């Protein structure tokens, strides 16, 4: 479904991504891992249109998407959550997801119908599936950090994506919240067949749910394969030498 080939992106001479390769097949859960500064978030920005690649190709369902603006990429079927919870602070939880659904339904230029209650079923369904239903009327700025990260995912789901990209979904979460998040990701994959790509620092989590793992070090894809393959790879071992975490 997603093919990234030799993508390069530099900033003022610094090569944040210097030859990244990635393949994600439909229905998979793929994780991108790597030490800090490996270029994971930059790669994600490239995938979702927030940055344009200097060279290389990014193909989604066979079509080139590198360099397209974010809203176009979203319409093609890729949505994302952000590393730092990036929601609409003044809107309620319900409204946050609602706006994503309405955008997907192309209703954003409706000016004379009242928005209250629009797409209620769809939004409620999403909120229920992520577990935020009983917080639906709370102004999203007032949520806890963990809840905001889950809301991020809910908003991304509002776009009914084919590929869901999660940028460090459990960052800053307490252990139970992390547990719930893992279950959620698994559930989304199993129940709706959603293809999920995410990046994480928590290695244990990654090995627990990812079908395949891609490892990036200093902007380069070192290896991409199953958990076993990655564990055995010597470069990965040396990159993570000194880091705690079961590898």
């Amino acid at each position, binding site marked *: 479904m997603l093919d990234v080939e030799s993508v390069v992106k530099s900033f003022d001479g610094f090569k944040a991504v210097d030859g990244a390769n990635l393949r994600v097949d439909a229905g998979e859960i793929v994780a991108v891992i790597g030490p800090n500064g490996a270029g994971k978030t930059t790669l994600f920005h490239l995938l*979702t*249109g*927030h940055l344009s690649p200097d060279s290389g190709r990014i193909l989604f369902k066979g079509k080139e998407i590198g360099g397209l*603006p*974010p*809203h176009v990429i*979203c*319409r093609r079927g890729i*949505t*994302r959550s*952000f590393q730092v919870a*990036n*929601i*609409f*602070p*003044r*809107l*309620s939880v*319900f*409204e946050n997801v*609602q*706006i*994503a659904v*309405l*955008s*997907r339904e192309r*209703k*954003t*230029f*409706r*000016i*004379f*119908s*009242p*928005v*209250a*209650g*629009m797409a209620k079923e769809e939004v409620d369904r999403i909120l229920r599936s992520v577990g935020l239903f009983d917080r*639906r*009327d*709370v*102004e999203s700025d007032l949520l806890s950090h963990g809840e905001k990260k889950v809301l991020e995912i809910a*908003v*991304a789901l*509002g*776009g009914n994506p084919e590929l869901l990209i999660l940028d460090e979904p459990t960052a800053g979460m307490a252990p139970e919240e992390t547990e719930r998040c893992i279950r959620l990701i698994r559930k989304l994959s199993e129940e709706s067949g959603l293809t999920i790509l995410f990046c994480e620092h928590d290695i244990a989590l990654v090995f627990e749910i990812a079908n395949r793992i891609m490892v990036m070090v200093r902007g380069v894809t070192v290896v991409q394969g199953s958990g076993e393959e990655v564990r055995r790879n010597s470069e990965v071992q040396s990159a993570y030498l000194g880091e705690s975490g079961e590898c």
Partner: protein
Amino acid sequence: MVTTRRSAAPLLLLLLPAALLALPQVLPRFHIYVAEIVLLTALLATSLNLAIGYTGLYQFGHAVFYGIGAYGTALTLTRSGMPAPVAFLAGPLAAAALSLLIGLICIRLSKLYFGMLQISLGSLVWAVVYRWYSFTGGDDGIHGIPLPDAIGSPKGSYYFTLAVTALCVFAMYRIVRSPFGKVIQGIRDNPVRAAAIGVDVRLHQLAVLVIAGFFGGVAGSLFVVVENSVFPDMMFWTFSLEVLIMCLLGGMYTFFGPFVGASAIVLLRVFASVHTRYWSLLLGTILALVIIFLPDGVLGVFVRRPRKREAPDA
């Protein structure tokens, strides 16, 4: 999303329209005139707030749409042979078109740049109108504009102004509560997020500019009804900032804030002009105090952070 306290609303809903309708029967002519100015200025401020309060655009040059709306209507009434209804459409449409044009030029710039360029382009329009004596009357403006009898009389003009203002404010209210209204607020709070959920941010911003420009133009054409004349200073940049002050004073994050702010400033000005020559000093001092002490505006004092509510309400 943000509402006035529920207890006050039903009472207001009854008293206000009754008072507004009864006004011309009760008050002397000058007061009716002031009321008309309050209404159309409030309409102007509300239209500005669509751009600045709801979408977060730095709309510093809004007065130019007011002025073009007025001139468009005035020129159509005095120079073309067209009937009045056409004139009252021509003004706002011209304003909307200008808004689109200026918007296209400025939209690539962010925030402050956008505002500074918009206000500068507005000054250009002002300069052209000011100098084009043969067409626009130059710095004299246009006077003695003929109006149909029904709306030319003092009471007629009042009811016309009231009706149009009410209609337009209602329309804007609906817009704000529509999906479009939500999206532009999303764009204001988090344009990156908005783009990531598939919203074409620029397109929506341009749409808001056109709508805001249109309703600003309507306010301008109402001025023609009230004053029978137009003059270039209607679109001078200091007036743009004054309208901004009205939005700020009343509260930019509420729908009726600009209405309240405009009413306050217009009434204050009328009152102050009787007692002092130094209106600018007064206005400036009030503005400074509001900025320093009441950043959310007057209504903002009552409506700070909406808390958990019963049902999703916009």
